[in-house]
């Protein structure tokens, strides 16, 4: 039943798309591979579980989970990019990795390593389109993802902050000379990334009714593959890449079994990096060291 697989894949892909947007924004604007993003995804998912288990209403839980992601991302910014902009290029990347470890282990300490069941406080409605079944919460999740990216696109193109971000992406050194308040704009990149990732974590927890301290590694890492597939630095590429990876994952499970997912998704990433590193929508060529 191919249509159902595609639908399932697209729904899953909307989660990857949101994570991919967070990654791609950091790469495109700051040339920074932010490894803390999977940690934020996991944090939001676990917070969602904890709040729903405690009986909090799901809209409040959503807001709190997303806010947690946003706040944590600002903490990460303070201790990665801001402190280390002038150090060797790998330092922010490495520090973001340390944050991933920090977040995962803190959650392990507080809540243990078990996979948690997320109690969903509403009956799962679904609509039937021909032979395929579409779960309404998943559809809402997809709609949110697309809407969020559309908003982001508008912000980047039409607001001052957006212009500031695009200027920094072009040339961080002259951005300051051009009057961009870099110190205020850079945290916005992290904040947007954190909000997107946290939204993804919330959507995942609600739609798949599970959360664990390892969901960053297991789920959000695939956002990296989605980002590269769509084109690094291109937010619509992130959506496209995310949806495609979701579909690829669903089909690999269907055809080859659940154990082959990593080989397919990351094998594809490897292939893209060798053959066409700019991805489908041709992202930015990353600034490398001078020749």
């Amino acid at each position, binding site marked *: 039943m191919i249509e159902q697989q595609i639908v399932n894949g697209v729904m899953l892909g909307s989660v990857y798309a949101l994570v991919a947007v967070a990654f791609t924004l950091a*790469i495109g604007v700051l*040339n920074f*591979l932010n*490894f803390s993003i999977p940690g934020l995804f996991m944090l939001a998912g676990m917070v969602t579980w904890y709040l729903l288990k405690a009986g909090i209403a799901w809209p409040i839980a959503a807001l709190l989970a997303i806010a947690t992601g946003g706040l944590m991302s600002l903490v990460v910014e303070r*201790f990665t990019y801001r*402190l*280390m902009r002038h*150090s*060797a*290029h*790998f*330092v922010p*990347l*490495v*520090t973001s*990795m*340390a*944050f*991933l*470890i*920090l977040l*995962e*282990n*803190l959650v*392990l*300490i507080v809540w243990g390593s078990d996979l948690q069941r997320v109690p969903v406080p509403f009956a799962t409605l679904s609509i039937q389109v021909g032979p395929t079944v579409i779960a309404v919460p998943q559809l809402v999740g997809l709609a949110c993802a697309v809407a969020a990216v559309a908003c982001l696109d508008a912000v980047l193109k039409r607001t001052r902050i957006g212009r500031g971000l695009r200027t920094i992406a072009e040339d961080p050194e002259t951005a300051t000379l051009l009057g961009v308040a870099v110190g205020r704009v850079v945290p916005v990149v992290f904040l947007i990334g954190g909000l997107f990732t946290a939204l993804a974590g919330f959507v995942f927890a609600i739609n798949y009714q599970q959360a664990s301290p390892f969901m960053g*590694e297991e789920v959000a*890492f695939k956002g*990296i*593959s989605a980002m*590269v597939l769509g084109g690094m630095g291109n937010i619509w590429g992130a959506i496209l890449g995310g949806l495609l990876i979701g579909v690829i994952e669903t089909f690999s499970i269907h055809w080859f079994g659940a*154990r*082959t*997912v*990593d*080989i397919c*998704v*990351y*094998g594809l*990433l*490897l292939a893209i*990096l*060798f053959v066409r*590193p700019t991805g489908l929508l041709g992202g930015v060529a*990353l600034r*490398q*060291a001078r*020749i």
Partner: protein
Amino acid sequence: MSGYLESLLVLLSINAILAYGAFLPMATGQLNLGVAAFAAIGAYSGAYLSNTYGAHPVLAAFVATAVAGAFGWIVAFPILRTRGIYLALATFALNQVVQGTILNLDVVGGASGYPVPAHIGFPVIAAFAVVVVALVFLLFHTRFGISVTAVSDDERVADLMGLSVRGLQTAAFAGGAALAGLAGALYAHHFNYIEVQNYGVLFSIYIVLYVLLGGTQTVYGPLLGATVFTLLPELLRGSAAWRYVIFALLVIAIMSFRPQGVVTGDLVRRLLGWRRSAQGSA
């Protein structure tokens, strides 16, 4: 020697070998997030040899080292065409693919883990570690050492000065893979059980982080990093998770204030300088 001290020293030995496995490519400027994959290749191929063919575990370890090194050499060709973040991403993807592949190999246990009855005891593991560390020290005091730093500092000029940048990077990548494989095989034969789930990207990240913590400017740094990482839980009698929390905070602190790591070229030069003047130089 008490069992506790012994297993601590075994872990230190294995972590030290892993540290140099990550250090070799990092010394040429490549962030290898696939170290864990090569350790897994070494662990599983060594275990397979001793389980299926009854090979002596030490022989299996040697073969596993060669297998991991060969794999690293082959993979280096496409991977080293990428640079910087792309290289880090490619090694990240490689790690996932290798882990995913082993997960599907039921012949070595797949997802259920793989018991390894043949045992290598502490003295042999310690001997391996000492030899590896000595060899790496020697290697970095040859022209290879300065060439590798030259490539890491300025690839373009190193090339114009006649160095084979690709050759050095490939050698470093493959050599690092081989060392990681050795560490994996030794681990498998000492703790007698391996699980593919432990060889994920996060494991690579731990190794890379403690090497960076120690410092990649000299050969001494990785050893310090491995020592700190191994001894940290002993200083804090908490759970494993607490140890990693403290480790992560330590990394963040060091990267904030001293990103070159604890042991820098300057530090070593100064320490050696004191010794030389204390002994009276010629």
